[in-house]
């Protein structure tokens, strides 16, 4: 079983975000990027499958700040191969373009299964998984939280609202959009990542030229101004707790 995981680096939402002078893009000069959290689950799912059935795992991304650390972290989790697409991705890349760019590199790896996160927090033109699937001519199932195999098919758990799960059969090779790995992404010690930096190597994928300004025509990007924000309760935890008790009593829940 040959598994390829594709991941994206996305804005860290814990940090404050700001808009650049042009008003149509995030200000990327101070933007901290982290692995898209669903992609982290996709890596974990691939590693779980490696442990269960001996799959070979290749992790693929593109050249952008912070990506080497994530790739070496994947190696520390026992991913077998690391690939980074060279190119000028600094200004960000939309999913349609990324799917087209990354297609050739993935095809050459001849995967049985391609995993990626079901969505990214900066998706403005659809999600990467289904775009990759269509570019590769493969079937796609998203919102997946469990993967097994039966002959030439993957049997996947697809989530629907209300806690309902559907067991779906998907012909292999296939692309899956991972919502959650079967167990949470594992923690790896920094020392292990450092060791991976010495022993593992990052290969370069096919160089790519990004097409300029394809994708949605952004007129304006802004931080939402909220009409009615929460009434903030000030004070230390004790004062806040006292006020909350009053509110609970007013609501009749205490």
């Amino acid at each position, binding site marked *: 079983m040959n598994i390829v995981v594709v991941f994206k680096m996305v804005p860290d939402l814990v940090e404050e975000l700001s808009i650049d002078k042009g008003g149509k893009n995030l200000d990327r000069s101070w933007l901290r990027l982290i692995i898209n959290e669903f992609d982290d689950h996709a890596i974990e799912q691939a590693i779980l499958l490696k442990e269960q059935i001996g799959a070979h795992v290749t992790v693929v991304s593109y050249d952008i700040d912070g990506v080497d650390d994530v790739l070496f972290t994947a190696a520390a989790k026992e991913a077998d191969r690391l690939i980074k697409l060279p190119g000028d991705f600094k200004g960000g890349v939309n999913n349609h373009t990324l799917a087209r760019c990354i297609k050739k590199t993935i095809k050459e790896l001849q995967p049985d299964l391609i995993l990626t996160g079901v969505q990214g927090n900066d998706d403005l033109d*659809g999600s990467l998984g289904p775009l990759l699937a269509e570019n590769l001519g493969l079937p796609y*199932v998203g919102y997946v939280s469990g993967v097994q195999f039966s002959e030439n098919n993957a049997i996947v758990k697809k989530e629907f609202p209300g806690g309902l799960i559907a067991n779906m059969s998907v012909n292999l090779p296939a692309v899956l959009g991972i919502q959650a790995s079967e167990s949470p992404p594992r923690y790896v010690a920094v020392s292990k990542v450092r060791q991976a930096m010495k022993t593992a190597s990052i290969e370069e994928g096919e160089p790519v030229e990004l097409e300029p300004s394809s994708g949605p025509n952004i007129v304006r990007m802004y931080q939402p101004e909220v009409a009615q924000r929460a009434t903030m309760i000030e004070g230390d935890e004790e004062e*806040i707790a006292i006020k909350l008790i009053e509110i609970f009593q007013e609501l009749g829940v205490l």
Partner: protein
Amino acid sequence: MTNDIFVVIEHLRGSVSDITYIMLAAAHDLVKETGGRVIGILLGNDAQGLISNLAADEVIYVDHPALSDFSSDGYQRTLSNLISEHQPRVAFFGNTTIGADIASVISARLGLQLINSCQKITSINGRVISVCQICGGKIMVEVELPDENTLITMIPGGYKSEEGQSDSPPKINTVSPPELDDLRTSLIQYIEPEEEDIDIANEPILISVGRGIQTEDNIELAEELAELMDGVLCASRPIVDQGWLPTSRMVGKSGKRVKAKLYLALGISGAPEHVEGITDCETIIAINTDPSAPIFDIAKYGAEVDLLDLVEELIDLVEEAKG
């Protein structure tokens, strides 16, 4: 290209999903700008009964046993054919476990633009704009609709579902399906959610924990508060993914929609997927150390404080208040 607007009707096990009505409401907003008709697209098997309250001018219905349950392959194939044949100005999909599996594929297959996570359709100086939400609700983006066949995925928040309902049923136009015998994805079976004695959808007092709770041990503290207040503990997605609470306690897009009298959100940032599940709550109180957390935009009361310190204080005070 025609000026008609397609809305892909989402339904699951015999009921129409809320997002369908929201999309219909958006489509009616859009035809005010562009003209044209609102056309619902229903794929199913023996599913005509689902259309009675849809606010659409017409429903195109494709009936086939392979479409009785959602199959991404079956939907993609059927919808790609319909869209390339009819060339609607816009086709709406839910940004949901159904729509998000198919919209991007159709966009790549037919070479059409896709605008993701649209919350509202509006018009600014004669330009038709889709107002989209990214970065967990922290950033809004206005995207101009191109003057060509475009796909849009829709999220809740901009329209009420009643706006997409009507008393007069639309006329139905049954069309024949494409070849659907060799689908690459198919349903084997549904696995019912674990039945619990507690259904959080019906609980009046919910204490809800998110990533800010930090460790599994801290869950106990929140549980203690919930018990003291005769409430029930529930959570946002990351907590359930960690295995700290069962799926039956998950609130949001792939969990339950709740309508509590009091929803106390502890360390929940308020990502759109979570907010979707709590908009019907009467009073939301949010505790978070991040002042820019979007949860404060929908909460009635908020406090920027360490939640563990606060919960300990609350436990003491609730005990006192109850004597």
